[in-house]
Each structure stands twice: as structure tokens, then as C-alpha cells.
């Protein structure tokens, strides 16, 4: 049963041509980064926040630079939260572009076939057409799925930053 699906998948990749592999690689990259971010926010970041709150107790309330120190801590944790987010955004932007690349290479394939066999054999062009359409579709799907989670991630980072700011204000 599983072999059947694997065969289907292989046939799908075969039809899509080499651009589909690029899209696939981007998708894997994108989702690894997204999952890594979610894991960081829900586990690592909490430890980090606890350490900051411990650390901040040593700063006296009448320090000349207390606002600056607070800003430093917020920014530092913000940088930590945001690592890789730009890369994720770029991957999402690039996905449709790679899909477009697939469209064009597929069209080149179609015209190559046309130059050899003439325009009367529509079946022989089907290969190029599927090479043009499948990567485009895949690129769109991955960009759309990525953009949903990326926006959620951005919102949760913003929320965490504001929360940290509030918590720090309470301490200092």
C-alpha cells in the first residue's frame, strides 16, 4: 500500500522535472526552520526569560542607566526570537519565483519538443507542460502554507516581546 503511494510520489517528481526538487528542498528548509522557531519559543525561550529575570534583580532601582539596560535586555531577547525569521521570509518570497522558473523551463522543454517533432503532436508536449505547471503549483502551495505560519510566528514574537517588556518594567 505504502509502495503504491511512493510510486505515485516518484511519478509526480518525475513529471515536475528538476525544478520540483528545488521547490522540495526549499519546502523542507522552510518547514525545518519554522518548526525550529516554534520549538525555540515554547521551550528555550522560557529558560532564557527566567535567566533574564534573575539577572535583572541585581540592578538597583536608582541606576542611572536602568532604562537603557531594560531596552538592551528586550532587544537582546528580540534578536534571539527573530533569528532565522528573515531567512524564512526570503524562502517564502523565493518559492513562487522558483515556481516561475519551473514554468519557463517547462515552456522551453515544450518548444524544444515542438522544434523536433513539429506542432501537430500534442501528446509529446504534455511532458513539458507538466514540467511547467507542477513546480508552479508546488511553489504556490508551499509559499501559502509557509506564509500562514510565518505570520503567526511574527505575531507571537511581537507578543512575547511586549510581555517581556511589561515584566521587566514591573521588576525595575
Amino acid at each position, binding site marked *: 500500500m505504502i509502495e503504491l503511494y511512493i510510486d505515485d510520489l516518484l511519478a509526480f517528481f518525475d513529471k515536475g522535472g528538476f525544478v520540483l526538487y528545488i521547490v522540495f528542498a526549499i519546502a523542507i528548509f522552510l518547514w525545518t526552520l519554522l518548526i525550529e522557531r516554534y520549538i525555540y519559543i515554547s521551550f528555550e525561550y522560557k529558560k532564557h526569560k527566567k535567566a533574564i529575570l534573575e539577572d535583572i534583580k*541585581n*540592578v538597583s532601582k536608582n*541606576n*542611572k*542607566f536602568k532604562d*537603557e*539596560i*531594560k*531596552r*538592551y*535586555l528586550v*532587544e*537582546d531577547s528580540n*534578536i534571539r526570537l527573530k533569528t532565522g525569521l*528573515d*531567512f524564512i*521570509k*526570503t524562502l517564502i*518570497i*523565493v518559492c513562487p*519565483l*522558483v515556481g*516561475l*522558473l519551473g514554468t*519557463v*523551463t517547462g*515552456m*522551453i522543454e515544450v*518548444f*524544444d519538443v*515542438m*522544434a*523536433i517533432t*513539429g*506542432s501537430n503532436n500534442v501528446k509529446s508536449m504534455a511532458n513539458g507542460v507538466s514540467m511547467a505547471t507542477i513546480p508552479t503549483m508546488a511553489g504556490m502551495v508551499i509559499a501559502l502554507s509557509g506564509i500562514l505560519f510565518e505570520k503567526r510566528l511574527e505575531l507571537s514574537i511581537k507578543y512575547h516581546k511586549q510581555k517581556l517588556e511589561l515584566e521587566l518594567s514591573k521588576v525595575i
Partner: protein
Amino acid sequence: MIKYILTLCLASTLAFSLNLEGLLQSVKNDANKELQVEKQRLQEFIDNKNEQATLLSKSKKILSQEEAESEKLKKIIDANELLLEEKETELSTKAASLGQMFGSVRQSSSDFLTNFQNSLTASQDPLKEEIFTKFANSKKLPNLEELTLFWHSMLDEIIKSGNISQYETNVILNTGVKVNEEVTRVGLFAAVSNGKYLTYSNDMKSLVELAVQPNSNVLSDARAFEKSNTIENITVDPTRGTLFEMIENNPTILDRVNQGGIVGYVILALGGLGLLVALYKMIVLNISSIKIKSQIKNIDKPKTNNSLGKIADIFYKNVNDSINDLEIKIGEAILRETNNIKKGQSFVKLLAAVTPLLGLLGTVTGMIATFQAITLFGTGDPKLMAGGISTALITTVLGLITAIPLLFAYTYISSKSEELVSILEEQSIGLLAKTLK
């Protein structure tokens, strides 16, 4: 003297006249004798007159007999003639279908010959071509033995076209050298030696290495197939060599790039420039990032070889000023360093944005060329339009191919410099203040 001579003449005349008289006498005698013989013969004829008559009648009788005989034989000849005619028509009807058969033998052998001359099996058994050539060109009717040979050769060819065999034969390499090599033949569809695909050339009467081989995956498959004794994957050409020959016409990457035309070269040049700038920026930013990171660890000992060190230096020198004065002084220093960090970044972004646009420009110019071709030659021949279309498509591809890495490079540069700027702007005072306690 004359007297003597005259005397001699007289004497000889005398002697001669004597002789003539003798002659006359003998002639008369002979005539008499003959007359007598004639008389005798006449008498004889008269005597035999009756006998002649009987002979005549006898001869007439034989003649009539012979005439009757001839009549009889003539009838037989006529009858035979009729029979012969009958038999001849019979023969011609029978020979007609037989002639058709020989015609078809000739035709099928010449058909077979043309197929055989292009087929890979010809390399295995070059003598077989002679058999087919002989049948195709012969004017006389083949006998039963030859027909059987033809039949068996055809069957042999059919069997060979369905099997995989290894044998030694002459191969002409790409360098033009003729060598004797072991060849693996897969039916009529592929022949491989030393991991290279071969094709059969009838002009050379030998296998020839393909000038442009299929890609390396296919070749390594073929090599594995040659070495193994079990069934392995191998790429064959179901069109008996036509597709392999078409590989030669397939444009290489360089051909493709050349199809892009001027716009294509401009895109590539800009892409190359952008990547160089991006690479330079990456190296510079990484070096300053490493320096700043090491400075963060030793924030109380400022070094002036990095941006944070310079700011820290100003901070420590003016730490006793009021916070406003300190912030103004540090802000000035930060502005200077930020400029340095962000320099060149927007150029990469510009190129990342411009290359797809240039690709679009190429698309449009290519389409213009295509439509010009259509106005000149009509839509009849798609090959005339192919030039413009390939320019259009290739420039788009080039635009995208250069834009995508530039985009990644820009993201890297901008996030890195963003991080550095944020360290300088937002954190420097806080970081430094923290060390004071």
C-alpha cells in the same frame, strides 16, 4: 649454215606428217569402237524396257504408301500441337503465381536489406548482408535451397532482435581509431562497449561511437549492465538510434545562454557583479560581527578596531557626563558606524529587483522578434519563430536564476547588518551600563 637448218626443218616436217597420219588412223578406229559400244547399250536398253516399267510401278506404289504415312503423322503432329498449346497455357498460369512469389521474395529481401543495413545486428554477422543483397538484386529465380536459406536468415534476424548478446567486433572510436572490442547488444535498440553507446554505420560496415553520449547516469547504468550477468536497468532507444542521434541537436547550457542575446549577457553581468558585492559584504560583515562578539565578552577593555569598541571607548571617556550628553555623543558615533555597516546593501537589493525586470525586458524583446518573424513569414513554420521565443524564455530564466541567489544574499546581509546595528543602537548603552553595576 642455212642449208643445214632448212634440211633439219624438212626432215622434222617429214617425220611429223608421218605421225599425223597415224593419229588420224587411230581416231577413226576409236570412233568405230565407241559406236559399237553405243549400239550395244541401246540394244541393252531396248531389252530392259519391260523391266523399267515394273520398276516404275513399284516406285509409284512406294510413293503412295509414304504419302499415306505422312498424312497419318501430320494428324499426330496436329494433335500434339494442340496438346502442347494446352500444356503451355497451363504452364503459364502456374508459372504466373510462381513468378509472383519470386517477386515477393525479391521485394521482401530488399526491404529486409534496408532494415538490416541500419540495424545493430548487422555488426554481429556481416556476412548475412550478402545473402539479402544477392536475393534483392538477382534476376534469376532462386531455388528451393536458397529460399530456405533466406527464410532461415530472416528467422535468425528476428531471434537476434529479441535477445541480448555479447560479442567481439570492430568499433570506430571518436578519435577515428578502429579497435576490436567486446560489444553488448540489446536487441535492435542499443549497443554498448566500455560504457559508451554505439551506433551502426552502414558506410563503414562497423559500429561507431556516438559523438554526443547521453548523460552520465545513463552511461553508468550501461556500464553496470555490461559487467553484470543478471538483468539490470539500461536505457535503450526504442526508435533504433534516432533519439540517440537527436541528443546531438539538444542545445547545451552554453548554447542556451547564447540564445538569451544581449539582454541575457547584461543580466549575467549584473548578476555576477551583484554576487561579488554580496560576497564582499558578507565577508566584511562577518569579520566585524566576530570582532563585535569578542568585544561584547570583554566589554570593559575597548579596542578601537571594531564599531562597538569605538563606542565603548567614547562611553568610558564620558561616563561621568549627564545621560543626555552621553546619549548625544554615543548617538553620533553610532550613526557613523551604522553608515559603514549598511553601505552597499541597497545595491544588492537593487540588483535582485532589477534582474527579473531585465528578464521581463528580454521576454518582451523576444516576443517582438517572434511577431516580426510572423509578419514576415506567417505562422506556417514554427521553427522561424523559435529564435525569438527562446530569447524570451531564456532571459526570463536567467533573470530568475540570478535574482534568487541575490535575494538570499541580500537577506543574509540585511539580517546580519540589522543585528549589528541593533547591537550598536539599542544595546550598546545598556550593555555598557550593565558592566558598571
